[in-house]
């Protein structure tokens, strides 16, 4: 098998992976970025609205207010040390992107344009703040392309269209790199590195209705579970309120930030009832539940009464063309509506995974071990949506995702440099650890039964939508878990028709399905365990938040579906803790 050796290997070419890679490459380390797609095809490219930082370009602002909003938005499940760190670092991370060349939209005074987003306030819950920095409604595209461009300049080594199989670890738990395969040739490869960073993004493809790209299959999550490490808070999935009805593609919250609003079939601005103060700019979990309730109670629009309408005609063609050109294009193409003339039909769509691979502030993967619940796994890091640091807690605020990518991408890069300096020589690589990933590959050459990847994937996504959506309850979750077990068994009977080595996408989809099945399992088991409603996790049978029992994170292990918990870090780095309060908007 081909073997390549680097100081560090980064799995994933989205915003967080590229930001970390840049830190390492600029510091003279040999770094490889392994990505199953050409980096600018990563899902960061789809982010629309912007990146939140308290620059104060439009309204008076400071990082501490941003921190309060993020803690409250997380329904107090976010770790306050991580949230303080992110909000403190936000301004410098955004200025740095500007210096790199990101073409932010501009205010008349030449400063970075900022827009209002949901859950943002001044003075710890006061007036609406204007905090999200934007490049029209293509901020993710601009950010991803800028970071890719800087990495070309820094001569980062790219393994484009390589699919990762598994982590390589030794008996003492050190991560020594990963096994992967070239999609083009089908050849496996060992990439050895003293530090490995997982930046594989989300897994929204476990749901039927999702804003997520087809590549978002939780590959890093599967690798971590197979390596015997836990996943944190997997019950928390954000359903974005405004996906294009029936399609799932996203219409940014920035539309409501620019003055758009939602109406039901009676033409009512129903958010006034659910969030009298913030109305359409309440937190995403609040707005999604409100839409689900309107539809459920028969006030949905359209022939099936299955969506609500997002109105923005009143903004005028000029504002729409200048600030929201991308969503105008999406709406015309996928909803058949030019928002200049008519409202966009929208419904909640699975959008973001708040949970993921547990890490600390340095991006180090942490797991329960001898000395406590958060011991770093040597040589292994995770950042971005696949990681749970946890800054988003039970519900992420809009604009905090791109911020998470660059702040923790940079922090992980910095810590990896330290780690590489302290660990200058590679450790011995056990052969058995390499075989682990290759076995995964070999299975897909075998003739089994007559199940198909496409068939199982469709059933899985329907199952998750039905049993683990916006509202959840025990009986339905349990039924879903039972059906999932059946699907997992049937997945063992899949035979691939395509046995070519060259660009065999059927095999990639099969490997992705393995990861999706594990993500689904972690999600349902965690959702069953958490008997309360908090943030995006709404249990009909436990409608209240229960801080006495559940102000803690869940940790899911693959072995026996074991579920542990660990405390929320309520103590920030320097400021006073924000005590859990009733959450209203």
């Amino acid at each position, binding site marked *: 098998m081909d073997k390549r050796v680097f100081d560090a290997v980064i799995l994933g070419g989205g915003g967080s992976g590229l930001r970390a890679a840049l830190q390492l490459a600029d510091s003279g380390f040999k770094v490889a970025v392994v990505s199953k797609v050409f980096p600018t095809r990563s899902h960061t490219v789809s982010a629309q609205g912007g990146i939140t930082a308290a620059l104060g370009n439009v309204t008076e602002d400071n990082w501490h207010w941003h921190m309060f909003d993020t803690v409250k938005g997380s329904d107090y499940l976010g770790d306050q040390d991580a949230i303080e760190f992110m909000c403190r670092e936000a301004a410098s991370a955004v200025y740095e992107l500007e210096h790199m*060349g990101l073409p932010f939209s501009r205010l008349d005074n030449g400063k970075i344009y900022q827009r209002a987003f949901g859950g943002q306030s001044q003075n710890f819950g006061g007036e609406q703040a204007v905090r999200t920095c934007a490049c029209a409604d293509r901020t993710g595209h601009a950010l991803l392309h800028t970071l890719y461009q800087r990495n070309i300049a820094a001569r980062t080594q790219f393994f484009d269209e390589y699919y990762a199989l598994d982590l390589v670890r030794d008996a003492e738990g050190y991560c020594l790199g990963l096994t992967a395969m070239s999609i083009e040739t089908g050849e496996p490869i060992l990439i050895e590195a003293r530090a490995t960073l997982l930046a594989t993004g989300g897994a929204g493809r476990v749901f039927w209705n999702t804003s997520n790209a087809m590549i978002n299959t939780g590959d890093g999550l599967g690798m971590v579970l197979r390596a015997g490490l836990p996943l944190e808070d997997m019950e928390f999935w954000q359903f974005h309120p405004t996906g294009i009805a029936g399609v799932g593609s996203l219409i940014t919250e920035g539309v409501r930030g620019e003055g758009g609003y939602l109406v039901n079939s009676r033409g009512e601005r129903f958010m006034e009832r659910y969030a009298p103060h913030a109305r359409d700019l309440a937190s995403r979990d609040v707005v999604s539940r409100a839409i689900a309730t309107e539809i459920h109670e028969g006030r949905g629009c359209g022939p099936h009464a299955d969506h609500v309408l997002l109105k923005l005609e009143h903004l005028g063609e000029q504002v729409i063309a200048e600030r929201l050109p991308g969503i105008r294009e999406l709406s015309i193409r996928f909803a058949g509506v030019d928002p200049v003339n008519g409202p966009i039909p929208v419904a909640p769509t699975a959008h973001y995974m708040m949970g993921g691979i547990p890490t600390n502030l340095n991006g180090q993967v942490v797991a329960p071990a001898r000395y406590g619940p958060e011991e770093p796994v040597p040589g292994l890091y995770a950042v971005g949506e696949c990681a749970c640091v946890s800054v988003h807690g039970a519900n992420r605020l809009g604009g905090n995702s791109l911020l998470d990518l660059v702040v923790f991408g940079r922090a992980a890069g910095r810590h990896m440099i330290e780690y590489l300096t302290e660990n200058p020589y590679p450790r011995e690589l056990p052969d058995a650890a390499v075989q682990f990933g290759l076995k995964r590959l070999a299975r897909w050459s075998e003739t089994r039964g007559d199940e198909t990847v496409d068939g199982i994937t469709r059933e899985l996504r329907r199952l998750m939508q039905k049993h683990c959506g916006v509202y959840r309850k025990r009986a339905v979750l349990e039924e879903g878990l039972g059906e999932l077990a059946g699907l997992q068994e049937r997945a063992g009977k899949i035979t691939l028709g395509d046995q070519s080595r060259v660009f065999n996408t059927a095999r990639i989809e099969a490997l992705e399905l393995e990861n999706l099945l594990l993500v689904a399992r972690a999600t349902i088991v965690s959702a069953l365990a958490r008997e309360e409603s908090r943030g995006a996790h709404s249990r009909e049978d436990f409608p209240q938040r229960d801080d006495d029992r559940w102000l803690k994170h869940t940790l899911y292990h693959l072995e026996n579906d074991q579920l542990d918990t660990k405390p929320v870090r309520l103590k920030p780095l320097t400021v006073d803790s924000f005590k859990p309060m009733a959450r209203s908007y």
Partner: protein
Amino acid sequence: MKFRLHRFDPESGKKPFMQEVELDIDPAGKMLLDALLELKAGDDTLAFRRSCREGVCGSDAVNANGRNVLACVTPLSSLKEPIEIRPLPGLPVIRDFVVDMEPFYRQYRSIKPWLINDEPEPERERLQTPEERAELEGAYECILCGACTSACPSFWWHPDKFVGPSGLLQAWRFIADSRDQATEERLDNLEDAYRLYRCRGVMNCVEACPKGLNPTEAIGKIRELLVKRKV
């Protein structure tokens, strides 16, 4: 609906061929990508790239009925049957609709697609007026799908020497940026018989761009600068 699909697997030992297939699909509200996914559900050996399925990642550019399009934003109802799908022209075919994009990426890298500014960075953002920022409209939005460059006859003939419409549009994106200080260097990089001047203004690129961008216009602006600095 009737399809004719370009099929090629180098491992099969067979030459490329066109496969006739019928698919039971209602085209209303569906895109070409939806049909390709259905076709693949029935025959998993069909290989193509795809990801965002909303026209922003640039993965699924193919040639449909002779035109380069992004499959995910091309309405099925807009295509005449039989719908003939081929890989993008002018690039080596790896399998089915999958081409080797490296000649395209190499030209992209050749224009140094990153902001060059050697001045010490200010503590806050560099200022840029909305008018200066407006110069980047229509240039920064490129998604690197390759639809334009692989529709360009000059690129077919000289993929190693001619930068191609996408790369030249990106060159203009940095020349046009008030924060970039390397205009002279960038113009030097393009001033040769092939790199820019092989553009014959046939404007296939404008027709092909799924984002409605206009590389020909950008190339014209670079030409103007090249002429101006000669005088």
